[in-house]
């Protein structure tokens, strides 16, 4: 309806296996979406090993843990990067002796609900694995974007993530992004991985009570030396090497998300 305020679309970027480039992708997609006028917040949802601040080359003074455990106001913790989007930083680890309890999850949910009107997209940069925090953020998201690389271990862990989110939380739709694909045939590799993963999913997961699972390939990012260079410089690809093939693909992914969900 005209004039009605749209609430933020929540997208969780997950991976199963660590080290597949999830945080770099999240940061670059955020920059690309903000460059076309979208209001973007990244939540560093890796409460155990937060590292977005390092990738972005920023040093936020406070983290989401300061809100949760010290009662610091949200406004003081929300960090405006100089890259066109905001960041909800996380510290490395929860305070000793605390766990991600239901009460804590409820508090995080309230914080996010209070931000829904301010942004068009809230991206959750989740941690690796299928732990409680990852599952919580993935289940809170409207869209789940799974990042895999062509490595068998990555595909295996990605499949495990889909299986758990489907069987435990009834999630049926997943966006797939293949990263670090051979630059000579990245599109073909992406299509091959997506096709194969879908066929295994259809064979083993579709027969249960939760209905069919569908994955949608939204891109295959080629292995690109510009990416580690940008990370070393603590810059985004758009800053350090905007013409790099990986930068082009990440912009395409951002366009896809923009057209499909916004």
């Amino acid at each position, binding site marked *: 309806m005209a004039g009605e305020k749209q609430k933020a679309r929540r997208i969780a970027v997950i991976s199963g296996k660590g080290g597949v480039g999830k945080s770099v992708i999240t940061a670059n997609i955020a920059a690309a979406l903000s460059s076309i006028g979208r209001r973007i917040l990244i939540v560093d949802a890796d409460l155990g090993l937060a590292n977005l601040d390092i990738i972005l080359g920023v040093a936020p003074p406070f983290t989401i843990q300061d809100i949760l455990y010290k009662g610091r106001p949200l406004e003081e913790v929300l960090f405006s990067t100089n890259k066109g989007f905001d960041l909800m930083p996380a510290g490395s680890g929860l305070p000793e002796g605390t*766990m991600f309890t239901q009460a804590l999850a409820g508090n995080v949910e309230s914080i996010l609900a209070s931000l829904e009107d301010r942004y068009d997209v809230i991206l959750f940069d989740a941690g690796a694995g299928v732990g409680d925090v990852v599952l919580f953020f993935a289940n809170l998201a409207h869209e789940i974007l799974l990042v895999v690389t062509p490595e068998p271990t990555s595909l295996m862990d990605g499949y495990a993530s889909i299986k*758990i989110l489907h069987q435990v939380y009834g999630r049926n739709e997943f966006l797939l992004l293949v990263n670090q694909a051979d630059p000579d045939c990245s599109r073909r590799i992406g299509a091959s*991985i997506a096709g194969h993963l879908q066929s*295994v999913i259809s064979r083993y997961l579709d027969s249960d009570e939760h209905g069919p699972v569908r994955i949608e390939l939204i891109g295959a990012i080629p292995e690109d030396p510009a990416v580690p260079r940008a990370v070393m410089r603590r810059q985004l690809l758009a800053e350090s090497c905007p013409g790099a093939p990986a930068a082009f693909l990440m912009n395409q992914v951002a366009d896809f998300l923009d057209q499909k969900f916004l």
Partner: protein
Amino acid sequence: MGENRPEDQKLNLSNALRILHNAGREDPRVPGESPDEQLQRIIDALCDLSIHDGLTGLVNATFFHVVLTREIERSLRTRRICGLMVLDIDHFKAVNDTHGHATGDAVIQAVAAELKSCLRSMDTAARIGGEEFAVILPECAPEDAIHAAMRIHSVLNPVTVKLEAGSLKLTTSAGLVWTSPDLFVSSIVLLSEADQEMYRAKRTGRGRLCYKHADSTMISRQERSALMTLGREDRFHGW
């Protein structure tokens, strides 16, 4: 502002004692001890209250998840597995309906007492629902977990509860799963897997113990080999 005045401390102390009193706990202070020692006793008693189930004295459901998450993380570091056993008293609703809730509570207490009696020192037993219990079996090999679970299960099958007239003999169904040293499994997922095994024990006759490797349901051997065929079929991957 924000100063902790002596009268506030007294007030806090009396609130703390009221919480303990309301929960049916005795005043933990020992006469003759210093105020600091007394305060520590009260804090200890409150901590104890916050993590234990009032009826059985076992760990409560909230703290159970804390311990389970910690043990799963530890199992990955030590590369030993963590077992999780879920137990449910069979036909408990009928006990409540026929003999009343007081008898139901007595049954739960009797099962909890038997459960406590057969734990290893490192195990944690919790009451996670009405008549549902869980035991965390950390730091073991799969065969140790199975052995421990079989021992617990045999002690609980049956449990006899004496009534004013006669006695009740109750069985318990149990499910056991264990983690993989290589794969991080969420406590929610592990509990759901153990629950499924316990329900399998119910479905297949009650009073039974069913078990499986949690990893085997995360990705079965067939799924694993189906995923791996990608490398064999597609030369572009260089697998």
